[in-house]
């Protein structure tokens, strides 16, 4: 456990000693901020227009729901930005060790492969959490000026965390296959994108396969979280996906070690 922690701390240092981390956080925050602004302004505009209309025609104003019309699509958006940004977080997690030759240090130290993999995975997840902090601040503004429900916000973050964990596990696996960070980033993005769009293929396939493809699609499982529904089936899906990624990384490290 102490050794896992040592790996974790080292990875956190690599993140925050590198300018890339700050660029990634900044890019994520700017994108998240722009989308937040766009959603917010269109929401406010719609509500405002409706108010004017209701006064003009003396009809009762429609009910505008912040959760449904702002927060829900916003979470969907954050998931999409994560798809693009997380490969940049996971790309160097393992490939850098191969490039620097530090695998030789790790493999000849009394530390197990699972400690290495889990330490790195948890560091990636922590970094993702840090990346999400600014979005929490944006959403907090809604609570200051409005009265949204808290439940869907919390469930949305749970969903993001689970989705992110699956992407990070997949990206870590890809990173363990190459010593080139760029290839690791592209590969990680490709894998995540594949899991994202796999559901689209469902409409072109038979009913049996469609079911499988729809099940595998990472975004299908996200909808409910964004709407405030926490379904254990979806939680299980993301945990399973993360576990598969971690397991594959584990296997890839063991295999590399046997071949090298």
């Amino acid at each position, binding site marked *: 456990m*102490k050794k896992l922690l*040592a790996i974790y701390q080292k990875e956190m*240092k690599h993140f925050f*000693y*590198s300018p890339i981390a700050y660029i990634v956080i900044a890019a994520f925050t700017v994108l998240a901020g722009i989308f937040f602004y766009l959603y917010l302004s269109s929401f406010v505009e719609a509500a405002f227009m409706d108010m004017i209309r209701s006064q003009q025609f003396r009809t009762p104003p429609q009910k505008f729901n912040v959760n449904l019309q702002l927060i829900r699509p916003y979470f969907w958006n954050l998931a999409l930005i994560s798809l693009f940004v997380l490969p940049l977080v996971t790309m160097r997690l393992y490939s850098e060790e191969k490039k*620097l*030759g530090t695998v*030789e*240090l790790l493999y000849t*130290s009394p530390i197990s492969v699972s400690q290495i993999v889990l330490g790195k995975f948890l560091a990636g997840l922590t970094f993702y959490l840090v990346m999400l902090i600014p979005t929490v601040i944006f959403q907090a503004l809604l609570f200051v000026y409005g009265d949204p429900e808290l439940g869907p916000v919390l469930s949305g973050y749970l969903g993001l965390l689970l989705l992110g964990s699956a992407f990070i596990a997949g990206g870590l696996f890809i990173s363990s296959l190459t010593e080139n960070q760029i290839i690791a980033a592209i590969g990680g993005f490709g894998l995540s994108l594949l899991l994202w769009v796999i559901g689209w293929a469902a409409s072109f396939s038979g009913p049996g396969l469609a079911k499988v493809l729809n099940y595998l699609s990472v975004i299908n499982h996200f909808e409910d979280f964004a709407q405030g529904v926490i379904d254990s089936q979806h939680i299980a899906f993301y945990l399973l996906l993360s576990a598969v990624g971690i397991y594959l990384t584990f296997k890839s490290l063991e295999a590399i070690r046997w071949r090298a």
Partner: protein
Amino acid sequence: MIEVKNLTRYYGEKCAINNVSFRVEKGEVLGLLGPNAAGKTTTMRILTCYMPPTSGDAWVAGYNIWEAPMEVKKRIGYLPENPPLYHDLRVEEYLNFVAKIKGVPGNRLKSQVSSAIERAGLTSVARQVIGSLSKGYKQRVGLAQALLNDPDVLILDEPTVGLDPRQIIEIRQLIKNLGGDHTVILSTHILPEVEMTCQRVVIINEGQVVAQDTPENLTRRLRGTERILLELDGDTRTVEEVLGRFPQITSREVEKLSGNGHVRYALEVTEDIRNQLARAVVESGVNLYELRSEAYSLEDIFLHLTTKEEEAVA
């Protein structure tokens, strides 16, 4: 302390080491000497449990590499050919990390790290980022890392490669001082390094052990065939006749010197016959310009053994 038995390792079809066996006693500094691609790194990677051999067995610090790799890893310090450094960490941070993954207990962490820093001569750069250090200092950080947790066995792969002469001398001195407390295996393709730092040498070539002994014994073994260099000016037939009188001469190489028309003989002899040879040459009327005996250096032995090996393979 270390016992290596019939280690063989293939990379696909390619045989990197073949039936390598040797022993290292406690406190000894052993040199693994061989040209590039001889299989030194491969041997070391097997002993450090980085990868398994294709066949064969080894015990390091009392533990078997197949049965108890974790126990082996707890007791070794390893400096790979390229020091395994994280360039963005400070020296201290890096050593702290390595100490932790090596399982140094929390209460001894500080003292272990500072003693490694001191022994490797890193005190002045302990707070610097590793990426900003010179090659020599990076090598020392690699060495400091291997010293953490006071390992029973130190395995150093070409520890002086790429350093400038002053750094080389310093690192060698450091390694020499490590013997006694630690059992050390160091690999090198540089002969003087072995003569200076090691008590025993294993010469390895094309994956096979071709000789193992102390540097002195290896030299003595070839003393049986000493070399005499002779520079003469005179009638070739006379010279041949004189040399023919000595059954102690086992082989001769002739070389015509371009400058002055003299002839140089390099003679392999079974005993020191300089005295008789000088008299015989002078009495025959041939002009003698130089006569000296040349002891084999380890370098010659190395060349001798490795070329012989190549002939055997061919």
